[in-house]
Every structure is written in structure tokens, then in C-alpha cells.
């Protein structure tokens, strides 16, 4: 249990307001107190959010370009390995200037040459990655069906396969299984397939409990670029079988889906999740 005095010190520390002996004493205590360390971490996280209270502003586009150019130049130099040296004839200023000009041109050509080589290598790697992802996704879909995790032979899964094959570009699909968080329906299961190119997907659900009146299930897509999950729409299940096959679109542009979730919400859905989560992907 952390007393109020140390809570206060933790808050001041999170803001960088401790100094001198007070700071040294607190850091000594912090080193041997895991609970206090956890508290400081939480308070620092909360304090960092205050950056959003600053008036909205953005740096110039030139800053981004400058930083990236700086990193690229440094990388090109490293790729060359040895340093370049040259001797300037100090007694002839015009000769010194000519040497500098020639050297700059030579270095520029090296830089451009290494950039081209890096781009070519990157393209080859991208192609290899694409082929690998395509194979993995196909294998994952087949594994799910073969292991009977999703009812093999059902019309819903056959329709899912037809949709996948028709859409092509399998490599970039996101496929995930969603496991049940329902204590009373642990066997509930879903498979979500997301096509980022088309910004649409398919959700196949099995063994979900029937919905009470006035309720809907709502799908959420977790994209790290957004602070809250993106709405994927509401759906209901067949009350007799607990099944559903839902085509969905995201409520806003999605760059990268890292998780899918389903929550229980009021009829018609909500803009921001309020109800308990019932399914979550790994």
C-alpha cells in the first residue's frame, strides 16, 4: 500500500518536478519498490496524454523530409563502408574548389547508385514476402476448415471459400479466428477474413447464443492508428443454430487490422463500444 505522501511524490516525479535531494531519495525508494514503480509508470502514461491539450499544430512538411533524407544519407554512407579522403592543394584555391566539385559529383553518384541497389533488393524482398503470405493464408484457411473448427461442409464455409477465390490477392488478406469470452458459451467461434484492398470482409460465426430482444452483436476492427476500435457493423445470429455469415465494411479507412472483436450492444449498434466483449481474436 502506497501512502499519500509517496503518491504525491510519484505524481510530482511523473511531471519531472522533483529536484535535488527529494529526487534522489525518491529514485532510491523507486528502485526497490515494484508497486511504486508501477504507479509511476501509470502516472507518466496519464501525464503524457496532456500533450493533446496543447493547441493543435503540426510541423512543416520540410521537417519530415529533412529527417528522412538525413537517415537515408547516413545509411548510404554506411553501405559504402570505408571513408573517403582527398588532398586539397592548399596553394591553389581554384584547384581546391575543382577538387571539391569532382569529389562531390563522385560521392553523389555513389549515393544514387547505392539507393538504386537498395530499391532493387527491396522489391525482390517484397515479392518474396508476398508469395510467402499468399501461401500462409491459403494454408491457414484450409487448416481451419480441415480441423472442423469451423463447420466443414457447411454452406457458409463453402460460400466463404468461393468469395476468397473470386477476390484473389489472397496474400494480403487478414484471416483470424475469434475465440469466445462467454463463460456460458465457450464453444462459440468465429472466423473473420478482411480484404484491405477492398476495405471489406466476411465474418462467419458459429454456436453463438441467441440475442435477447433489443440487442445486437457488433463487430469491431482494431487498427492501431485509431484510439478506439473501428465499427464493423451489427449482425444477428440464427437463433436455432447460432450461426451467421456476414459481409462487413469498416466505418472508416483501415490501414492495418491487428485484432477483431465482437461485443454485445443495444439494437442498431453504438458508435463506441459500451457492452461486454464476447469474441476476441488472438
Amino acid at each position, binding site marked *: 500500500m502506497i501512502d*499519500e505522501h509517496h*503518491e*504525491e511524490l510519484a*505524481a*510530482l516525479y511523473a*511531471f*519531472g*518536478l522533483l*529536484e535535488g535531494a527529494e529526487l534522489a531519495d525518491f529514485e532510491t525508494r523507486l528502485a526497490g519498490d515494484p508497486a511504486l514503480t508501477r504507479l509511476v*509508470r*501509470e*502516472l*507518466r*502514461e*496519464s*501525464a*503524457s*496524454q*496532456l*500533450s*493533446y*491539450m*496543447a*493547441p*493543435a*499544430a*503540426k*510541423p*512543416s512538411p520540410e*521537417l*519530415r523530409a*529533412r*529527417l*528522412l533524407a*538525413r*537517415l*537515408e544519407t547516413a*545509411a548510404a554512407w554506411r553501405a559504402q563502408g570505408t571513408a573517403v579522403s582527398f588532398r586539397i592543394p592548399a596553394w591553389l584555391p581554384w584547384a581546391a574548389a575543382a577538387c571539391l566539385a569532382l569529389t562531390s559529383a563522385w560521392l553523389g553518384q555513389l549515393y544514387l547508385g547505392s539507393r538504386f541497389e537498395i530499391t532493387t533488393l527491396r522489391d525482390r524482398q517484397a515479392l518474396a514476402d508476398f508469395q510467402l503470405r499468399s501461401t500462409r493464408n491459403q494454408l491457414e484457411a484450409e487448416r481451419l476448415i480441415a480441423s472442423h473448427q469451423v463447420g466443414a461442409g457447411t454452406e457458409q464455409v463453402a460460400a466463404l471459400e468461393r468469395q476468397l477465390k473470386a477476390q484473389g490477392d489472397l496474400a494480403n488478406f487478414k484471416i483470424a479466428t475469434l475465440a469466445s*469470452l462467454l463463460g456460458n458459451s465457450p464453444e462459440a467461434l468465429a472466423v473473420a477474413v478482411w480484404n484491405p484492398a477492398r476495405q471489406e470482409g466476411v465474418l462467419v460465426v458459429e454456436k453463438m447464443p441467441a440475442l435477447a430482444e433489443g440487442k445486437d452483436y457488433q463487430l*469491431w476492427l*482494431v487498427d*492501431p*492508428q*485509431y*484510439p*478506439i*476500435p473501428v465499427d464493423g457493423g451489427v449482425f444477428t445470429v440464427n437463433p436455432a443454430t447460432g450461426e451467421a455469415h456476414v459481409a462487413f465494411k469498416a466505418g*472508416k*479507412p483501415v*490501414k*492495418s487490422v*491487428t*485484432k477483431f*472483436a465482437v*461485443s454485445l450492444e443495444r439494437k442498431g449498434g453504438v458508435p*463506441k*463500444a459500451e457492452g*461486454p*466483449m464476447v469474441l*476476441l481474436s488472438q
Partner: protein
Amino acid sequence: MKPTVITPEAVAAAERARFDAELLRRMANSDREAFAQLYDRFSRPLYATALRVLRNAAEAEDIVQDVFLALWEKADAFEPARGTAFAWAVTLTRNRAIDRFRLRQRRSELLSKTTGEDAGIRPYGSDRHSADELTLKERAGAVRAAVEALPAEQQVAVELAFFSGLTQQEIADQLSEPLGTVKARIRRGLFRLRDILGGHHD
């Protein structure tokens, strides 16, 4: 013991933190694409913070440049167990901005009514519909609502603690309040923010 309720927002916050940590890990392997992504995610709140402290666009850009170069060079030193990448970046930014502010000794500008143009503030707008823009506006809205939920005296105390660059005693002098009162307001305000914002961490 009360069971922990997992909310989609808490999942989203954890995913964001994990994604940022992964970008830093890739940066440690000299991945410039990861750097660009982290820049796009963090640059605006970091710049806004530096600008709020320094009230000078050129100096604020210097700070942001230094911070991102530091993130690039020290990416391999980042430890997720110690906090999120965003909190780390904000700490670096604040520390540098406050150090520069104190060097300049322009504390009298704390109460100046500087306009956006004077301070070189470039508001959002040209990429109004970008995903990053939407994220920032949603995030800013959530944090503003949390701060406005605090009693007025706690709002002032935490904002001075974060942005002013003043010491504890200087904040107390600024507010014409006893030091103990100011410390208590800072404690209560930050703890309340922690409770309200909960899993809304970048």
C-alpha cells in the same frame, strides 16, 4: 476481487502501444519505413507540446527533430515494460523543451496572449480527412473531456505542471497558493486523469 472487464477500448489502447513498440524495434534495425510511420503517428502532438512550452515554431521544430533523431539512435534502448513509446517520446520532448525554455529565461511569457500566427502555429486542416487527423482529433477530444472533468483548480495545476517549465515553488507563487496545496492539487488531478483515461494510452 472484482473481475477485470476487458473493453474493446482497452484492447485498442494495448494494440496501439504494441504497434508503436514494434515500430521502435524495427527502427533499432535501421528500418526507415518504421521511422516514417512513427513520425506520422507522433510528430503532431510532440510538436504541439514543444510549441506550447516554447511559443516559437522554429525552436519547436528543432526540439522535434532532436527527439526523433534520439528515438532513432536509442530505439534499441526502449523497454516496453517501463512504459509506452508515446510516453517516452513525450518525456523526451518535454524535457528538451523545458530545458531550452529555462535557458531562455522567458518566464514572463507564460501569461502572454500569443496568437496562433505569432507563435507560428499551423493548425490542422489541409489533410482534414486523413486517418491520422481523425485519430488526433478523437484523442484530443477524449483528453480534453477528461481534463475538463477535473475541478478548475486541479486543471490549472496539472496544466502548469506539464507545460509551464516552472518548479513546484514557482507554480505555487504563480497561483498565490501554499506549496502544500499546489502539490495536493497536482496529485489529485493526475490521479483523477489516470482513472478517467484508463486504457486510453498511446
